[in-house]
């Protein structure tokens, strides 16, 4: 090797190692280098070695895969625990089932149902109302679950609405004849369910259920001959559970978002590490290569 001598060089890397080729007209020499830890460099040469050089060295291993691998196992264990808890605490017997008369006349009605007995220290109480023949109408429902002993009240609002019609694309329907609300953390006790509800028709739509023969299979048009004022029953069912699906989804997000963040850091590291490669990215950097990266390579 002499001053001013020119050689053609190639470096082949894998994290932790580099194989270098230097060639001129007289000879070809190969050398293998092993990446040292900054502490080893400082101890050997008494210089300050950069801890986190950026962009990373071509053969610098990403610090994230070990964390990702262990983190993924932890996340799977957490997911299994969440599923087990959800399975163990989901569902339960119905606490109350009843019906109230419903008229689509725009007038508010009130009914007191019960008793609803909550046995657990704290209970998720779900209330489902279904008006099976609701059509082009809606029902506003205000619930108040009132503790008979303390008069403490837990309130919620539900809305069942169902519409249908026909346009240039054909028949359409919208909404649901049922509405479910969920009350959180209802303490143990005996409750009355006070239901204030108002049935309304949409626009000038006729009442679907005011013809007695409609449900008898007689083939009569349910919208014919409407005069309003008749009633049907709206069923009210009070159920119990302990787990909110929204809580489960939130826990899943909280569990996996850090892993996604670590993976993104790993991806950024690998893209930067392979940024000067003549052969293009490999591994995870190649899997998530963006269109911009492709254009840069073409240039």
């Amino acid at each position, binding site marked *: 090797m002499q001053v001013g001598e020119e050689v053609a060089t190639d470096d082949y890397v894998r994290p932790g190692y580099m194989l270098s080729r230097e060639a001129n007209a007289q000879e070809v020499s190969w050398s293998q280098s092993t990446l040292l830890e900054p502490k080893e460099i400082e101890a050997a040469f008494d210089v300050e070695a950069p801890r986190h050089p950026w962009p990373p060295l071509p053969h610098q291993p990403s610090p*994230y895969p*070990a*964390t990702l691998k*262990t*983190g993924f196992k*932890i*996340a799977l*264990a*957490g997911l299994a*625990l*969440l599923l087990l*808890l959800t399975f163990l*605490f989901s569902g339960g017997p119905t606490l109350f089932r009843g019906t109230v008369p419903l008229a689509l006349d725009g007038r508010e009605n009130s009914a007191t149902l019960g008793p609803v007995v909550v046995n*657990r*220290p*704290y*209970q*998720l109480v779900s209330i489902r109302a279904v008006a099976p023949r609701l059509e082009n109408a*809606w029902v*506003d429902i*205000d619930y108040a679950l009132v503790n008979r002993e303390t008069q403490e009240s*837990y*309130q*919620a*609002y*539900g*809305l069942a*609405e169902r*519409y249908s*019609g026909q*346009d240039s694309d054909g028949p*359409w329907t*919208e*909404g649901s004849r049922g509405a479910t*609300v*969920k*009350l*959180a*953390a*209802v303490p143990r006790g005996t409750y009355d369910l006070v239901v204030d509800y108002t049935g*309304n028709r*949409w*626009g000038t739509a006729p009442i679907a259920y005011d013809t007695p023969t409609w449900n008898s299979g007689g083939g009569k048009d349910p919208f014919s001959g409407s005069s309003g004022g008749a009633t049907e029953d709206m069923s009210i069912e009070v159920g119990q559970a*302990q*787990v*909110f699906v*929204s*809580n*489960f989804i*939130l*826990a899943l997000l*909280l*569990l996996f978002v*850090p*892993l996604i963040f*670590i993976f993104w850091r790993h991806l950024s590291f690998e893209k930067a590490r392979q940024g000067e490669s003549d052969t293009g990215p490999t591994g995870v950097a190649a899997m998530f290569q963006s269109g911009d990266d492709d254009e840069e390579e073409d240039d």
Partner: protein
Amino acid sequence: MGRGAFLYGLWSLGVVGLFLGSTFYAYSPFADGGRVAPRAGFYGPTHK
């Protein structure tokens, strides 16, 4: 186990613990209870 994995383990433990606590107290930030105000404004289909 590295520092990152250890911290993530602690985080996961906290998440599962919170889920367990919310399950015991049947609590959810997304529960319907307390929403006493009826829906204001437009009733009817949004079909176009």
